């Protein structure tokens, strides 16, 4: 973006000095100020460790000023695109990988310099590098990585006489039925399993189950779907069975977990912080984590964020240097990087190997260990960065919900979703 030269005319300085106005260091050595603007979806509390790092970097690099702005996660991509159209882009973005195709399509992202690319390839898990790689180029430095697993309520399991989490989709249905309790009106008080209609939970659960079955939801060229494959219809059919059996409903929400309202749900690792806060000392005794139940080879979906730099930034090199510093171990004995410290504070995982090593203590609990194991397992696959991914997810969610409600058969719903999504994918350049 912009380099602002704060040069005070000599005449004005004389006048100011005569007037007794203290100009401070700026007037004594009129150094150009380089402002680097950073946009993330993290709120002020979550971003606090990074702010401290920014101040430290500014102290180490006089002449650099770092400004952070928060953009709502919901509107992030739109805000970035509109800001660019208005010729006021920021310099550094924290990007959900599925936003990248549209940004790359409009030429919004800078390709990292060779030294940054080497830094990433040497220090990050391959799955997170894949998530930040499109059209043969790496587009940034991976940050937060989320992976899905089955989270279950050990207390409800014990009360129902169940001692192990389900391994197959049929097991899941049986276990859910044993846990479910209803009121006399027939409405579910304790749901055996919860899908969550909000956000991307419906599609992410479905994708995770597809990966666990060994079938990717999209073809490798990302121009077609695999939703017409028998495995996809089988998975959706098993979901529909949960509704038919009355062990879940649209009003049973994953957010009811801490309150004992659900037995199981597919959740990402970042729910740890929320559950730990809600359950307090009961966290470990209540929350269990297991692989995604599947009749296939097993696996799950990963989704990632990465730091990227705007192609129109006027401070690209300083921005990449800042990012490298923010993602490098701090201290001689390899402590957490600034990004790692922020993610650790939120209970998140990272693709940064040295951060993951430095997080050893905070991810030693059974909850995190299961997620780390899932992340390292070969069946964990990055969410494909398809064209207009959010729109495609909403289309798929619509048809999945139609199947749940019994208004379409699973196969017909997925065939219709395939038609609509393929039309979206065919638009990509």
């Amino acid at each position, binding site marked *: 973006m912009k380099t602002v030269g704060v040069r005070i005319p000599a005449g004005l300085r004389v006048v100011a000095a005569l007037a007794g106005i203290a100009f401070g260091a700026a007037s004594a050595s009129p150094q150009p100020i380089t402002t680097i603007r950073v946009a993330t979806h993290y709120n002020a509390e979550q971003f606090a460790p990074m702010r401290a790092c920014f101040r430290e970097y500014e102290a180490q690099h006089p002449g650099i000023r770092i400004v952070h702005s928060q953009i709502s996660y919901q*509107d992030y991509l*739109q805000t970035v*695109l*509109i800001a*660019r*159209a208005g010729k006021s882009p920021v310099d550094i973005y924290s990007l959900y990988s599925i936003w990248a195709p549209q940004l790359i399509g*409009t030429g919004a992202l800078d390709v990292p310099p060779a030294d940054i690319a080497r830094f990433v390839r040497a220090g990050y898990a391959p799955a997170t590098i894949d998530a930040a790689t499109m059209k043969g180029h790496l587009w940034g430095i991976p940050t937060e990585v989320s992976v899905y697993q089955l989270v279950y309520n050990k207390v409800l399991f014990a009360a129902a006489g169940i001692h192990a989490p389900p391994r197959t989709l049929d097991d899941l249905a049986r276990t859910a039925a044993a846990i479910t309790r209803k*009121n*006399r*009106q*027939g*409405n*579910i*008080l304790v749901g055996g399993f919860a899908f969550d*209609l*909000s956000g991307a939970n419906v599609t992410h659960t479905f994708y995770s189950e597809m990966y666990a079955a060994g079938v990717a939801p999209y073809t490798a060229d990302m121009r077609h779907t695999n939703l017409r494959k028998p495995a996809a219809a089988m998975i959706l059919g098993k979901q529909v069975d949960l509704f038919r059996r009355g062990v879940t*409903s*649209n*009003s049973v929400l994953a957010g009811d977990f801490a309150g004992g309202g659900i037995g199981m749900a597919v959740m990402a690792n970042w729910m740890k912080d929320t559950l730990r806060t809600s359950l307090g000392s009961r966290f470990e005794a209540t929350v269990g984590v297991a692989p995604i139940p599947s009749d296939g080879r097993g696996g799950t979906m990963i989704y990632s964020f990465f730091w990227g730099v705007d192609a129109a930034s006027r401070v690209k090199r300083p921005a990449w240097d800042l990012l490298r510093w923010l993602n490098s171990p701090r201290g001689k004995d390899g402590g957490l990087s600034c990004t790692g410290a922020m993610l650790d504070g939120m209970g998140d995982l990272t693709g940064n190997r040295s951060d993951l090593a430095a997080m050893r203590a905070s991810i030693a609990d059974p909850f995190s260990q299961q997620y780390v194991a899932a992340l390292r397992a070969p069946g964990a696959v990055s969410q494909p960065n398809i064209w*207009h991914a*959010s*729109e495609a997810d*909403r*289309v798929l969610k*619509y048809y999945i*919900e*139609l199947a*749940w*409600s019994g*208004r379409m058969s699973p196969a017909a719903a997925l065939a*219709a979703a395939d*038609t*609509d999504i393929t*039309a979206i994918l065919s638009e990509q350049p």
Partner: protein
Amino acid sequence: MIAWLTSKRGAPYLFMAPVFVFAVFLFVGPLLFAATISFTDWEGVTAPRWVGLHNYTYLLIHDGFFLTSVWNTLVFAAGSVIVGVPLALIAAALISQSRYQSVWRTIYWLPMITNIVAVAYIWRYILNDTSGLLNRTLDVFGLGGPDWLTSTSTAMLSVIMVASWMSIGQNVLVFLSGLAEIDESYYEAARLDGANPLQLFWHVTIPLLRPTIVFVLITSLINALSAFVLMLILTEGGPARSTTVTGLYLYDMAFTDLRLGRASAAAYILFALIFVISLVQLRLLRRGSVEGA
């Protein structure tokens, strides 16, 4: 020029100029802009690309949901008019007979001045399937409690109920002013002929209130056809898009997917629909009402 503007012929135009400028920049301009981009694939970032009628044909022929959204819009509009307008009329008739009219007017007006977000959240709690006030009350009487907001069978009905509740205050006020215009002598004459209160309402009030009824019907229908904020907050258009009306669908198209060209085409189709329905409604209802009043 200045002389002309200050003359008797020019002065009116001078005084009208602010309104004219306002209309051009904030009404006519955006309308023409939207019409133009409805023939492009503009996403708000790169230069628009002319696609002719593609957006219109896509929406009407290929889009898997657009026509369903139009159907949802019609169901919502018809439902909220059929439920809301008679309720408002009955409430107004009762209030006009009561002693504390201003108190009742205030009570019925309250939903109109309450923030729609607050209204939606309160109704979400009331309509919750297990802990909501409505189902708890039904349970006391041994009745079943539907899954009001999250079942595809009842979600639209719930939205219609809430929308009718919200609009009742405004319509009550309009009906009350219409009722106040009816001369008491009509009722006295009818009473002398032996009419009971129900007959008075049906044979005197309704015919004489017809212009007001037509006005309320048309404005309520137009409001309902273009409504979407309530659904956005109350149900987010779900489940399975069963409460996604065209307004909400095109809002997502424009501001979530940045398909501004296609969203503009959808807006023009919705505009055409509202225009035709309003025209038909006006033609059907105005005989003996607006013209006859």
